[in-house]
């Protein structure tokens, strides 16, 4: 029973999806690990690919099955308002955990910029660090690494006011269209909601395309790579993880797009859609941080 007599508390019966998910996750990461190890060892062992593929299939099966169950239960009206609040808390704290994941990489960026690289250049109280590479000059973006033999620096960096600026506009606009879609859904205007969500998705995919083009440009014309020293490391890990999250958000929104067409949502009951919107706003906010701290400053 729910809190203030607002209905029945739904305790799901046994489910096979969690164990499928556990095995799927295990196979996925094991396969990835095997692939990486054989790549670094210079071997050509395809086993890892198969393991990863099996894991990926299981995860996909699980996602369809598990979310399918939840959608079905929700549409049957088994969930009370209390259950809805549990989902909201769950999604909110999940996004907070994602914020902290990005914080680790932002923290790494700030550390190398304001401590690590200047110390290597002989600044501050830790001048001994500066004796490691006497000819090294600290600068940011770091174009010439302390050990240029092992880490060849980039010849250039991305100008924030070209593609990244366009991407900023795309993503901010997509956040607005996403909210438009949400409002339309709340006003019971399904067609309008669907159309605004379509625009959102379009903007998201164009963003990813632009990002892909930018990476191509960085790798092939600027020598800016993951291996081009700490500038490339922080640049690609931050923007790359952001891109991965945009992809995930776009997949969520695509599912929601299909669910709008199928008429799954009502003006009052559409938390699945709302959760995907929250996530989309979150990746937008992370991008603002990236644009500011990775590209401009």
């Amino acid at each position, binding site marked *: *029973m729910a*809190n*203030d007599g607002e209905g029945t*508390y739904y*305790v*799901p*019966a*046994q*489910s*096979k*999806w*969690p*164990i499928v998910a*556990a*095995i799927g*996750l*295990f196979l996925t*990461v*094991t396969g990835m*690990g095997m692939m*990486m*190890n054989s790549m*670094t060892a210079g071997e050509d062992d395809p086993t890892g690919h198969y393991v990863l593929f099996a894991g990926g299939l299981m995860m996909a099966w699980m996602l369809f099955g*598990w979310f399918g169950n939840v959608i079905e239960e929700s549409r049957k009206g088994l969930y009370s308002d*209390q259950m809805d*609040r*549990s989902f909201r*808390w*769950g999604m909110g*704290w*999940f996004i907070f*955990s994602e914020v*902290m*994941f990005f*914080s*680790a*990489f932002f*923290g*790494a960026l700030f*550390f*190398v910029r304001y401590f*690590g690289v200047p*110390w*290597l250049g002989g600044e*501050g*109280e830790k001048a001994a660090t500066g004796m490691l590479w006497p000819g090294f000059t600290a600068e940011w973006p770091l174009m010439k*690494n*302390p*050990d240029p033999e*092992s*880490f060849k620096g980039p010849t250039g960096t991305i100008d924030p006011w070209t593609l990244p600026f366009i991407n900023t506009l795309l993503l901010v606009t997509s956040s607005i269209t996403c909210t438009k879609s949400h409002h339309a859904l709340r006003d019971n205007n399904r067609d309008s909601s669907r159309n605004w969500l379509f625009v959102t998705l379009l903007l998201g995919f164009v963003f990813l395309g632009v990002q892909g083009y930018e990476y191509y440009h960085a790798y092939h014309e600027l020598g800016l*790579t*993951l291996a*081009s*020293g*700490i500038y*490339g*490391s922080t640049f*690609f*890990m931050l923007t790359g993880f952001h891109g991965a999250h945009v992809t995930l958000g776009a997949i969520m929104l695509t599912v929601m797009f299909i669910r709008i067409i199928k008429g799954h949502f009502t003006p009052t009951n559409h938390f699945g859609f709302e959760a995907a919107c929250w996530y989309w706003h979150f990746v937008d906010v992370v991008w603002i941080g990236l644009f500011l701290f990775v590209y401009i400053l």
Partner: protein
Amino acid sequence: MSEHHHGPAKGLMRWVLTTNHKDIGSLYLWFSFAMFLLGGAMAMVIRAELFQPGLQIVQPEFFNQMTTMHGLIMVFGAVMPAFVGLANWMIPMMIGAPDMALPRMNNWSFWILPFAFALLVSTLFMEGGGPNFGWTFYAPLSTDYGPPSTTFFIFAVHMMGISSIMGAINVIATILNLRAPGMTLMKMPLFVWTWLVTAYLLIAVMPVLAGAVTMMLMDIHFGTSFFNAGGGGDPVLFQHVFWFFGHPEVYIMILPAFGIVSAIIPAFARKPLFGYTSMVYAVASIAFLSFIVWAHHMFTVGIPLVGEVFFMYATMLIAVPTGVKVFNWVATMFKGSLTFETPMLFAVAFVVLFTIGGFSGLMLSIAPADFQYHDTYFVVAHFHYVLVPGAIFAIFAGVYYWLPKWTGHMYDTALSKVHFWMSFIGMNLTFFPMHFVGLAGMPRRIPDYNMQFADFNMISSVGGFMFGVTQLLFLFIVIKCVRTGDKAEAKPWEGAHGLEWMVPSPAPYHTFSTPPEVK
């Protein structure tokens, strides 16, 4: 709805497919105990090698793998899952909820763990051996010089992190959303409060650990230079990211223990907790401080003077809320009608011995003194005093306190007291002499040592074996209690308070289908 009210399913699949908080709690607890024995077996290897100076039993390479795996398994496999198991069992019962908020995700959180640890332990059998760089896996030991199995270690950590984060989200959603009517936040039992704060810490720092191991993975396989100064990175960066996770992590392993002890001491002192509100604020303060003290693990690595001073004073500040807690427990016992049943024995030992660990922590917080203690057995003594008679004694106390509720039987009182005294003596014999060898300069994580440390090390080893063997007795006591024993009443402890004692023992499979009214 009726289909959800029948009892547990039969057979193995009950445990694999379950969405019941009690089943999942039991799974966590049994898994944790299995890991406790495995990590303990590794500790026995370490103590056997250190029984005498010189190299007798294992190669230094294997010794390194043992110290590393012992730490990882005990932290992530034994202590954390044990607390999650207790949370699963007790939080819904304590707040009058029917189950955890997200029961299927609860099952996933658990079942990730056996796979994660299978992956982690399998590294021991891989070419080049398992992780050998200490449980803190500092770069570049773990990146440039780590064995190839490091990759799988990294993914195992990722899996543990996913499990912890989902478990924590579940705990928070349960506490914030599923409390019975009238159960306001400031009426919640302290175990629930401490878990609410712990869950927050978990969600805040496990992703940072994921970030740290991801940077390692990229450095190892994809040529990034996060922790390589040649590319402009910095190995010290690793330590910052790691300890930003690592320090809150130590509170993750002690705050639920505070909650357990805060339930047990009032029950056996037959007095309400001396200051409930101050305990809640102390827990919150400790959690806040845990985020701004991480560099006290790095005093000797070379951080700017202002950093040394800031982190030194911030660390000392932790003594204030911790003092509030210790004085609260002592004041609760003061002039109480004390009896010393086994849960109380463990709880009182907790207060005394955890305080010893706290004081050695205070010594370590003094930066100039830490230069001397750093990486010696003094540090080993310190953190084992807060983890063994801290976290683990509190888990034992909690298990004995709630076993009658779980099984419907009383445990074997006499044997449980043997378990307590053997553990108490064994653990003090093991870890107390480590203070002395540490202050005299014996470095940690080395399989051999100078002759002058021989006597104390032999005592430590004898104590270690004693403590280790004693835990098999604990296993026996628990199994015996599950199968047989005197029938336990709904409230077997006269002075106990809380909703969990209002339901029969053993607690029904689904506890509260209608929420109890809390006055």
